[in-house]
């Protein structure tokens, strides 16, 4: 680990002033960043601590849910109003990592966690995301867990967050503050596709800070769920996952929100599935149709073809669990 200075801002403005300096990383829970420091994948010369910035409130209003960036994953997962009104968020968090990590990890840090591509985390391997221009070891190498959506010739790494999948499905908005002021960005637009620059992962400007994430209320949020499929029953990243929220009235689907995890280079919303569901009857045939449409446009490679069938089954099952069998 390279030496670095550890600093703390007096307030948000002072934190951003420090955070915009070249070679600076923010540290929240530290669960991803400390790993990356140990592996020499991140070599900042300054860390700016986000602890103590008063960004850890959970607010529930009739308009929606607001999660401060520094709220811990465990606090959000256990929050009674989240469990009742936004179960997909609680479930996605409870399916993430392990209790110890969830007591440290924050909402902001979770959205900005780096990919689990093992080549990215191993400085002995070429990797365009970590060291631009060196090539991608995964495309010809071991890519069983990699993306089937959104990959480029430069990078096929998945975005690893479960929470982001649930939040993308629920139209979450990210509230930012940076050297040039405050702005809101839709979570679907926070992360970038790899294209020719897999090293640039988000639209964040240097020093820009996530203050909070909000989720608009909707008739569908209560009837929602997260289904995650992995190599072992717990404490493992997703091979495939589905976040589903449905508004069903009189046996008919009035609104649908569907996103998939473990398969995309960013949290992957499935608009084609949503469109097919709206207006359809809540029946097994509809769930199966939704599952089939989930993989339209998939581009699997040699070792991750299995994800196509697995994702279809995952989405079908998740729809069935939320919508019920009829």
């Amino acid at each position, binding site marked *: 680990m390279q*030496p670095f200075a550890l600093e703390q801002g007096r307030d948000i403005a002072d934190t951003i002033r420090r955070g915009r300096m070249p070679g600076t990383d923010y540290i929240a829970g530290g669960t991803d960043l400390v790993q990356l420091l140990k592996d020499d994948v991140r070599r900042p010369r300054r860390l700016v601590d986000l602890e103590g910035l008063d960004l850890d409130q959970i607010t529930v209003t009739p308009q929606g849910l607001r999660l401060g960036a520094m709220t811990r994953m465990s606090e959000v997962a256990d929050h009674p109003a989240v469990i009742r009104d936004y179960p997909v968020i609680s479930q996605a968090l409870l399916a993430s990592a*392990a*209790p110890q990590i969830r007591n440290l990890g924050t909402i902001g840090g979770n959205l900005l966690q780096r990919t689990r591509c093992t080549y990215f985390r191993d400085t002995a391997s070429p990797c365009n995301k970590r060291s631009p221009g060196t090539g991608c070891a995964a495309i010809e190498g071991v890519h069983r867990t990699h993306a089937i959506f959104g990959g480029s010739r430069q990078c096929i790494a998945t975005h690893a967050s479960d929470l982001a999948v649930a939040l993308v499905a629920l139209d979450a908005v990210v509230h930012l503050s940076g050297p040039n002021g405050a702005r809101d960005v839709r979570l679907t637009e926070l992360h970038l596709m790899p294209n020719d620059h897999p090293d640039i992962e988000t639209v964040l400007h240097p020093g820009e800070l996530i203050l909070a994430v909000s989720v608009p209320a909707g008739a569908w949020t209560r009837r929602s769920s997260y289904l995650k499929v992995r190599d072992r*029953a717990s404490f493992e990243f997703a091979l495939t996952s589905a976040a589903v929220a449905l508004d069903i009235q009189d046996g008919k689907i009035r609104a649908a929100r569907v996103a998939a995890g473990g398969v995309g280079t960013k949290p992957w919303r499935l608009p084609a599935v949503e469109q097919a569901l709206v207006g359809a009857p809540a029946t097994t045939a509809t769930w199966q149709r939704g599952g089939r449409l989930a993989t339209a446009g998939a581009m699997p490679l040699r070792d991750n073809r299995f994800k196509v069938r697995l994702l279809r089954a995952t989405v079908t099952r998740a729809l069935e669990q939320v919508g019920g069998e009829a």
Partner: protein
Amino acid sequence: MTIRNFTRREFLRDTAATGGAAAIAGSGGKAWAVPAAADPPVPTQHRVTIRLNGTERALQLDPRTSLLDALREQLYLTGTKKGCDMGACGACTVLLDGKRVNACLVLAARLDGREVKTIEGLADGDQLHPLQAAFIEHDGFQCGYCTPGQIMSAAGLLNEGRPLDEHSIREWMSGNICRCGAYPNIVSAIRQASGRA
């Protein structure tokens, strides 16, 4: 020259340090390494005070020091184990302000004023904590390496006040890996200590 009595720990530590240095020198020419930020700063030592097992302890720390290394290398509390050093095994589990966390992922210099409890602080004098007694009674270990982490994780779990049937104990203890596979006995020890045996 002073002749020192090397303890086993110091010997292991110093040997490990030499081995580590050789490994670093060997990988110096890595083609794909991330370039170091120019002119890395000399890290300032941070003075922090933590409340450790009920006692205030002052520490002087390089900001890179994990809580795990601070406990083991500076405070010589070696009950907390280092398995993966990456958050993946749970051997380093301690309670931070009453909540279970992986000590290997926490930078100790950020902990000024916080409260840490380790396996050394769990018993009440000679009176074992109910979890410790239950692990012995149920044979909840083989080699014992994961055990302090298992017990501290279970202590955190009991504070969380969740309904604990066998399935949910397994899920809520999933952050603690046991290479010896003592899981069935770990589960029954936790069930007993939770008063639900």
